[in-house]
């Protein structure tokens, strides 16, 4: 097992040195003259006041969020919470009223039109809720699109496109038109198109929301599988808490244009920052949400490592099933590429599955809107 942990460490180092995204003090006001009201909004004018008295809509309020490299950050919120507005700031499709988005030392919000185009061509890619494929182009031509725009030679672009089409499981459909494919297959094309550019930032705007539940699960699995290996910096927008919990290394919950809580899935389920989030996560099936990493305890040096090894991403229910099947009392929890992280007992699983009665204990302070996991 030790020989396999070496590449993992290298991976982590490589990921850690890559630039992440840093969103600082972002405000967005929609209306004819947003800059006129930004001062008042910063001083605390409410969304309702701004709308009723001055006819401007407050889209985002004081968003500060760091998006770590090589991880999936999910921005979750109900419709109208500003999540689609927020993700469009990252590649400059929407310009903020105030604030900055730093990537690799540059502020995306201050780029010129040409710089922004270059940034979009080489550093970011996007997947859309309604796929947004070019209907008059084949799967191959759609997948090639980002490379074509960048001026990559035809043969090279085609080779890359074919490779990614195969990777998302659409081999053989290269010459089909989008209208000939089902929704799930179309979104695979959308994913292949975004991955083909090799951009490190992948923006996914409700990418799976338009799909049937089963297809959606399938796409989530594909995304997680690809991410295992690619370690892209993914910003994933969703209104679905289950999806957020399944995909997100970090989850940011947005409500009415404000960040309510930022943390890992477990953080949010175990320590909701306020009543809104508590209500949100109340009905969550903890056995299917909380992962082994949340209940694992460190392996004592004297202790013998259990034979059964379970990945840390495994949810408690799956872990329980595996352990029951193996007749094991204890199991080793391993990270990516089987790096050992800790140990888990059947009792830990049960404790994790049961929702504590009443309100969350107060001695575990909520992480707060900008808390780090």
């Amino acid at each position, binding site marked *: 097992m030790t020989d396999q942990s070496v590449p993992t460490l290298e991976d982590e180092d490589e990921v850690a040195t890559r630039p992440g995204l840093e969103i600082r003090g972002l405000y967005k006001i929609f209306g004819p003259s947003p800059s006129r009201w930004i001062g008042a909004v910063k001083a605390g004018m409410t969304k309702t006041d701004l709308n009723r008295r001055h006819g401007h809509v407050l889209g985002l309020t004081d968003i500060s969020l760091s998006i770590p490299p090589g991880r999936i950050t999910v921005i979750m919120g109900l419709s109208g919470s500003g999540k689609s507005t927020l993700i469009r700031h990252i590649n400059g499709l929407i310009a903020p009223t105030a604030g900055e988005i730093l990537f690799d030392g540059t502020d995306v919000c201050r780029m010129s039109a040409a710089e922004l185009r270059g940034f979009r061509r080489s550093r970011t890619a996007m997947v859309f809720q309604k796929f947004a494929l070019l209907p008059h182009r084949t799967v191959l031509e759609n997948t090639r699109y980002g490379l074509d725009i960048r001026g990559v030679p035809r043969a090279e672009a085609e080779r890359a496109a074919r490779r990614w089409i195969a990777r998302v499981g659409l081999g053989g459909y290269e010459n089909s038109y*989008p209208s000939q494919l089902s929704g799930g297959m179309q979104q695979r094309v959308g994913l292949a198109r975004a991955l083909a550019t090799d951009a490190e930032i992948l923006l996914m705007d409700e990418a799976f929301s338009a799909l049937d539940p089963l297809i959606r699960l399938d796409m989530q699995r594909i995304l997680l599988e690809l991410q295992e290996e690619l370690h892209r910096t993914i910003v994933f927008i969703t209104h679905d808490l289950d999806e957020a919990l399944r995909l997100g290394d970090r989850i940011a919950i947005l409500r009415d244009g404000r960040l309510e809580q930022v943390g890992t899935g477990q953080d949010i389920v175990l320590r909701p920052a306020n009543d809104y989030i508590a209500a949100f996560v109340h009905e969550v099936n903890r056995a299917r949400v909380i992962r082994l990493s949340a209940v694992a305890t460190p392996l004592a040096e004297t202790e013998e490592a259990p034979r059964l090894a379970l990945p840390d991403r495994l949810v408690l229910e799956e872990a329980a099933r595996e352990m029951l099947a193996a007749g094991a009392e204890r199991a080793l929890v391993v990270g990516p590429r089987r790096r050992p992280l800790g140990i888990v007992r059947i009792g830990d699983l049960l404790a994790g599955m049961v929702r504590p009665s009443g309100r969350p204990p107060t001695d575990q302070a909520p992480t707060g809107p900008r808390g780090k996991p």
Partner: protein
Amino acid sequence: MASACWGLPDAFCQFPAMDGKSLLLMRRTIDGTFRDIVRSWSGAIDAATAPLQIALNALERAFTSTPWIVVLALVLAIVWAGSRSWRIVAGTAVAMLAIGWFGLWRDTMVTLAMVSVCTAMAVVIGLPIGIAAARSDRMQRVINPVLDVMQTLPSFVYLIPVVVIFGIGKVPGMIAVVIYAVPPMIRLTNLGIRLVDAQVLEAAEAFGSSGRQKLWNVQLPLALPALMTGVNQTIMMALSMVVVASMVGVGGLGKNVLQAINNQFFTLGFLNGFALVAIAIIFDRTSQAFGQRLQQYRGAAHD
């Protein structure tokens, strides 16, 4: 008269129009100035239109002096290339042969030459203007009222300045036809581009497309149905306008129709009228079938 005016003062009853003398003076002044300007520029205008005149004459000669069998074969080949439908090709053949049988071949060729040139001009002029109107709301606000005027102003009315400026002949006729035929091209280009799925456009933008790349990769291809409707409408408008343009010296079928109206030649009028209808149908079916063939990818819908 005051009694017939419901007891109102005269001014509210009989419209206080400007008196006949000043109106006459105004007309004379404007007409005179306009004529003087045109006269002083006539050399430049003639020089500018000379190449058009030569090109039009050459094209007309090409259509009329080529043996009819060659022209027919070419027309049928074009119709086949556009529509890929034997029915449309057969219909075209029957219509063209009937036209020849009734002795209208030469006139039809003149009209065909005129309509082809005018349509091509209208598309070449209309497409960029339509694109410009789609890209900027301000541009659209300027262009729309101009198009409204162009489309509602009776065509006879703007024949007058065209004749004053360019005189009588093919070129002024062509200019009148193009002015008449270009509005649908502009409007439908504008509309087609504006109706392009905003999400697809956003996707192109998100991948870093430049304005030009968005235009060629997304906007024009997705606006194609509207563009093809625009071309189709332009052809129809041009065909109907060549008849009116015969009043300023454009030959062909239109001239025969004008003659038939003036002399009440019932049969001549209808034969020429039907010849125009036949050409219109050929153009229409071919361009529509072509447009549909370009969008076959839409037909293969999954569900």
